[in-house]
């Protein structure tokens, strides 16, 4: 069916308020935060802004009957091209389907529609002294639906884990229009082992099995106190060694972040008032909990880190803590500042390796950067071995683009070689799909079989994940 016809049919079914068909409007949906779509934006056939599960069902039934692809989209902050219609199709912009259906304080759960923005949800939950712990760097932008679809996690995954640990149940519209509820039709139980765990299957499925229209999340009580320790190292190896010793001392920080020299430079350029000291590596530990334990853990970290670090700062003053942590949270895009005529790109940005291999990996990435003559800014969640490498290039220089693609490929292979994976949290989408077979072997075939069960016609976000 051609673009015009698809638009007309959708307009007929859903009305002008919920459908975009103008060619110009569609162009705005041709990208996400990936380097891939920056180079090659692809507009969809139409955009639908559903306001209810029934709207989604209407689109799916129409698409199923006519063999048209459907691509769910949250805020488009994904870094893999996951929400872009690279093979044509209808984009479902779920960001305005965003009600908080229920905050069930007595059961410490919240039921939301997929479009709610993560930070907004936590702002509402804070009124009840609750929070939804996974905290991606994109918290203020990304939708909870996108987080579930990508199984996102963040700075505090070390202690609080990923989105999957909090999803108790989902409502999903399947490609044929069926609506299923996972985690029990009526269940509000926290523990539930009845049936095959379709919730876990859906979390992280990147929109290739169905459209998530309702999410039941477990919330946690907000910790009462926080503290941040910063340790500055002149030797890169000392950073992971310190992390290990902290764990061995029986301490489980809520976040452990690493910035290497290039990341430090980027942050200081962006926000000089943060004033990070120049060094080979900076570790940021966050501890949270009750005030006495925070104090104890902070002091222990300080003592352990002091054995190797040139400088250790432990802060519980909210202002200073915010500054130290802000440095980390802005690193991603601040990497754009290290080169006047360049920008960081989101490619090869999310490998995850065993803790014991973090220092070797960082060194190897630097070498690869030198090999291709490309600056790479490294930072990440060292506590769980998730390294964010940000190559900085002029994305409008074809030569640099070609080189960086080779570099990125080598970074991905390096991760697998180190006993890790090409993606720790951002997902696979289009950009890492080529490694699926290498990473999963025979299991990859079974993934494809599972996909066929849900999506026999192959219309649900094709060309992604597996």
């Amino acid at each position, binding site marked *: 069916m051609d673009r015009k016809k698809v638009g007309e049919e959708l307009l007929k079914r859903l009305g002008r308020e919920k459908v975009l068909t103008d060619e110009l409007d569609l162009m705005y949906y041709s990208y996400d935060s990936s380097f891939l779509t920056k180079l090659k934006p692809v507009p969809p056939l139409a955009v639908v802004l559903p306001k209810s599960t029934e709207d989604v069902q209407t689109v799916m039934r129409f698409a199923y009957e006519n063999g048209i692809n459907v691509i769910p989209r949250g805020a488009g902050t994904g870094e893999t091209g996951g929400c872009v219609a690279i093979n044509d199709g209808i984009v479902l912009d779920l960001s305005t389907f965003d009600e908080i259906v229920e905050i069930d304080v007595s059961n410490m759960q919240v039921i939301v529609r997929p479009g709610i923005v993560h930070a907004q949800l936590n702002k509402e939950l804070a009124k009840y002294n609750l929070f939804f712990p996974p905290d991606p760097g*994109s918290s203020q932008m990304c939708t909870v639906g996108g987080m579930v679809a990508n199984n996102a996690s963040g700075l505090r995954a070390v202690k609080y884990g990923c989105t999957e640990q909090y999803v108790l149940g989902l409502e999903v519209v399947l490609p044929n229009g069926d609506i299923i509820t996972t985690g029990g039709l009526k269940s509000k139980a926290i523990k539930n082992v009845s049936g095959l765990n379709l919730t876990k299957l859906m979390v992280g499925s990147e929109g290739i099995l169905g459209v998530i229209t309702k999410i039941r999340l477990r919330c946690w009580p907000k910790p009462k106190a926080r503290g941040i320790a910063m340790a500055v190292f002149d030797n890169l190896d000392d950073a992971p060694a310190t992390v290990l010793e902290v764990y061995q001392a029986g301490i489980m920080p809520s976040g452990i972040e690493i910035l290497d020299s290039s990341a430090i430079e980027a942050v200081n350029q962006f926000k000089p008032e943060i004033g990070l000291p120049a060094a080979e590596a900076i570790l940021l530990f966050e501890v949270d909990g009750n005030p006495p334990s925070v104090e104890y853990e902070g002091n222990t970290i300080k003592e352990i880190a002091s054995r190797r670090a040139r400088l250790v700062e432990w802060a519980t003053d909210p202002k200073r803590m915010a500054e130290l942590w802000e440095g980390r949270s802005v690193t991603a895009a601040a990497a754009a500042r290290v080169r006047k005529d360049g920008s960081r790109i989101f490619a090869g940005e999310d490998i995850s390796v065993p803790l014991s291999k973090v220092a070797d990996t960082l060194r190897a990435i630097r070498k690869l950067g030198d090999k291709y003559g490309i600056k790479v800014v490294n930072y990440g969640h060292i506590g769980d071995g998730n390294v964010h490498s940000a190559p900085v290039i002029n994305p409008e220089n074809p030569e640099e683009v070609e080189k960086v693609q080779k570099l990125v490929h080598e970074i991905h292979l390096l991760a697998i070689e180190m006993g890790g994976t090409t993606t720790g949290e951002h997902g696979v989408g289009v950009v890492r799909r080529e490694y699926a077979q290498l990473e999963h072997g025979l299991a990859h075939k079974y993934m494809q079989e599972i996909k066929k069960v849900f999506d026999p016609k192959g219309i649900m976000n094709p060309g992604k994940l597996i």
Partner: protein
Amino acid sequence: MDFRNLPPVREQIMKCVRCGKCRSVCPVFAEIRTEVAAPRGHVFMVQMLRDGKISPSNEVYERLSNCLMCETCSINCPSGIDIHELNAAARSYIYENNPHLGKELVFDTLWTKPSLLKAAAKLMWGAQKTGLQAFARRTGLTRLLPGDLKKAEGILSKVPSRSARSILRTKNSPRGEKKLKVGYFLGCGTDLLNPQVALATVEVLTYNGCEVIIPPEAKCCGLPHIANGKLETARLLAVHNIKIFNAYDFDYVVTDCASCSSALSSKNLEFLLGGLKIEEEAKSFAARVMDLNKFLLEVIDIKISEKAKTKKTKVTYHDPCHLANAQGIKKEPRELLNRIPGVQLIEMAEANRCCGGSGTYALTHYDLAMKILDKKMDSIMETGAQKVATACPSCMMQISYGMKRHHLAGEVVHPVELVSQALSSQPARK
């Protein structure tokens, strides 16, 4: 100047990583909620224009012009992109390819000649007596002006019968010893809509030892032109004003209008004139330009006697985008208000969220502007303040309209008006 050669177009577009941070802070996106209104969407479209992938059409202009130019996105962009400048550059580029008779008349003819603008204001004053709508219909103005004037009629606050310029002298001597020679950049909004603010400004400055000169040849700061796709006209205006003011050898050039001071700031002049011959002159001019609030606080260090017979008043302060976002001036107006005996400053929620006024925006995008305004009014109402202080004629007009719209009794003032009243109620004047 070629669109593609403008520094932000040349250097910044490629820096966008489409992270969406800008989207999460944009007041327009919060209302429209499709990617079409997202700041990163604007950046993307400017890129498409630059690369010739789309043509500079009115349809693109229409989408770009949803933006208020509030700069909230730009100050939040981690990649340091001046998103609003890209937008302005693109509007101008599109405009050049699609001339619009109404805009020529308004922005090239009317709004570059103070006398004509004043005449128009006079006409407006007359019109308001009979009803703008009828007037606009009779004169055919509705066809020429953009947007839905019918709906927007109420926004144009009462146009006073006399402009500030017609009341004030060119040269105003300081009370007592002359400490500084100050050029007063009297913006169109203050001049024509809020002459009482201009009188207060001159009063407060002269009271504090400033010789205040209002160069009669000065013209509009050019901000309305930048926002309406008339960069070249804005450039001409900037060059004109720079030459006029530089000829006086002022210690400072002060303005009570947030939009004017941002238009005359080094950042904006660099955007307009960077790389041109006038660049150095522009720098020396911009170095002297200062917002009035900042000037009264930091240069004059104004003192008001505790014994001033002012009434106890609850005041809340709204940050004009062109002060808070464009120039980072947030604490100065508050500090100034705090120095006024009797003023109890109550912070509103999200004081730096745009009010939706944004110059001519509320006239061209009425419904959207009202949604944004209503959010602002909610914040204002929560404070229970009797007065709303703000330092931009456009915000004053918009919030005054909000007061009417929500049937509130409060008054909208410029901080300098309160300062002036306080000074005049001191027991013994110098």
